[in-house]
């Protein structure tokens, strides 16, 4: 179970205090498939950053399984991101001078896994996303859809509990976007918790639960609750 209660995130902009999150609460069990939707500036990205351990809430509580993530220090958050979270970004965020295999290895390097083991596992992950024959290609030698699949393989490298995807199809054409969505659905069906942030209604429609954001608050919550 992942749950957060009354999360607030405020920024000081000159004299004004701007609330990116004005107090949101939600809980969802393992294996959930959520889409978070809303216009830009509605707070959905801020929530993603807090859920992924890249940022801390100004107030409120974030419980991951039984761990209180909201009070971890920098190193604790780094470890949390490394072990629990897989990130997929709109712009892929692959390191251009590394091969696909080396990109997938990266989270395992920071986990302290031996070279031989992480090579094997990275190759396995690339095969899982259908890129077994592309492991020595560099990002620049691959199409956008292939790059996003490398990024998904990387997000799975340390066997995370939660996959966070921020507009994962935003930079892809609709057919490769559909392939990537199919991949998320497959991963979810294998038990992985997936949260998508999107403002594409078609993408959101494929999720089992859809949470709508506006002005830092949850304004809708539809679909399966478990």
């Amino acid at each position: 179970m992942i749950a957060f209660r009354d999360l607030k995130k405020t920024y000081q902009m000159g004299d004004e205090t701007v609330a990116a999150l004005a107090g949101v609460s939600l809980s969802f069990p393992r294996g959930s498939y959520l889409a978070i939707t809303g216009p830009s500036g509605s707070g959905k990205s801020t929530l993603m950053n807090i859920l992924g351990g890249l940022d801390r809430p100004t107030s409120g509580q974030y419980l991951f399984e039984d761990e209180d993530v909201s009070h971890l220090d920098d190193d604790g958050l780094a470890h949390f991101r490394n072990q629990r979270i897989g990130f997929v970004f709109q712009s892929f965020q692959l390191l251009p001078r590394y091969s696909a295999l080396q990109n997938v290895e990266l989270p395992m390097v920071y986990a302290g896994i031996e070279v031989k083991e992480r090579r094997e596992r990275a190759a396995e992950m690339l095969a899982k996303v259908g890129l077994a024959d592309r492991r020595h290609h560099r990002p620049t030698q691959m199409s956008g859809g292939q790059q996003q699949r490398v990024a998904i393989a990387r997000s799975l490298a340390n066997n995370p509990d939660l996959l966070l995807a921020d507009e994962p199809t935003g930079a892809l054409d609709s057919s490769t976007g559909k392939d990537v969505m199919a991949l998320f659905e497959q991963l979810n069906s294998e038990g992985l918790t997936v949260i998508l942030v999107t403002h594409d209604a078609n993408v959101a429609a494929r999720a089992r639960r859809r949470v709508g954001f506006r002005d830092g608050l949850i304004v809708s919550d539809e679909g399966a609750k478990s």
Partner: protein
Amino acid sequence: MKSKDLLRFAASAIAAHPMRSALTSLGVVIGVAAVVMMTSIGLGAQQRVMSAISGLGSNLIIVSPAASRSGFAAQAAGSDISITGADAEAIAKQVEGVAAVAPTVRGQAQLAAEGTNWNSRIEGVTPDYLVARDLTIGQGRMFDDREARQGRTIAVIGTTVARELFGDADPLGKRIRVGSSPFQVVGVLTSKGQSGFGQDQDDIVLGPLPAVRSRVVGRRVKGDTVQTIYIKAASEDDLSRVQEDTTTLLRERHRIREGEDDDFQAQNMASILQASQAATATFTILLAAVAAVSLVVGGVGIMNIMLVAVTERTREIGLRMAVGAKRSDILIQFALESVALSLAGGILGLLIGIGGALLIAKLGSWPMAIPSWAAPLSLGFSMAVGLVFGAYPSWQASRLDPIEALRRE
């Protein structure tokens, strides 16, 4: 996170821009090469001066005429020669702890024998000269005091002169013409090789003082005057006392009143050695300091490029943090890059410095002297430069906010 992975990250980042990395290291290469070359030149100079001075003879005091003053106008040293053979005799008789006293005149002369010519140094000396200058006879004999007083025209020659004039033939008993006067060769000196000043010490002719004065250098050295008196103290402990006693004696003999300057100078080899050592040490430190400045400039170059690298790779840093890199992992990765750049420059600079020192030693017939601390010091110093100048960029990289960093274009 394993240290060999950190090294691998640093190496791959350096290898990604080979040209830029090479140029960045160049500053340190030049700095370290300069430090190594400068210290080796300084040390070589020191060794050369030391061997030159000690080659003159041990426990030696050299008395030579001082620049005389007429009114307030100082004249060149030796312009009015003031020391005499009688001074030398007085020193030998009255100063205690003296092993040898050798009054000397010298000149340059054209030598001729059996149709061959050679130009060499000729010194008019007494037999004590060999003792004072630590010379020995290799072949034949030295002339004695009686022969010298009789004004006999006989000579002892150095091995270079013997080779140039007589080739492989035995020079003993042969006649040589020194200027316009014939001298008979009675002995050949043992070879002493090159002096530290680069002078061939075997290119010399020694003749009895009276004969050489009257026949070879007569026009410049009048009466009983001599150009140099070499005094060998009996032991090192006697050296400074012999020097003082000689000075007192000569002032007395030359009727120099209290407060007046000496008209001669008595120099003790040990003190000359010390002074020149101090001078070359200062010189070496100065050279090394100048070279160290270029090393610092190299460090600033590294800092500059590391700051550029942090800016360029902001997204990479954000991504690394997102997948689990701790701030310390980022800090160490960038610090290692900086140290590796600097150390690589240091190693290359050390090799170039040693090569340059070898080349200078070869071209300038300079003793090859690379201080033993050159390698550890220059490598240690270049590592320190990388660490110091990489610290700020690395710290900046580690303080980045991952969210901001990932958003950067």
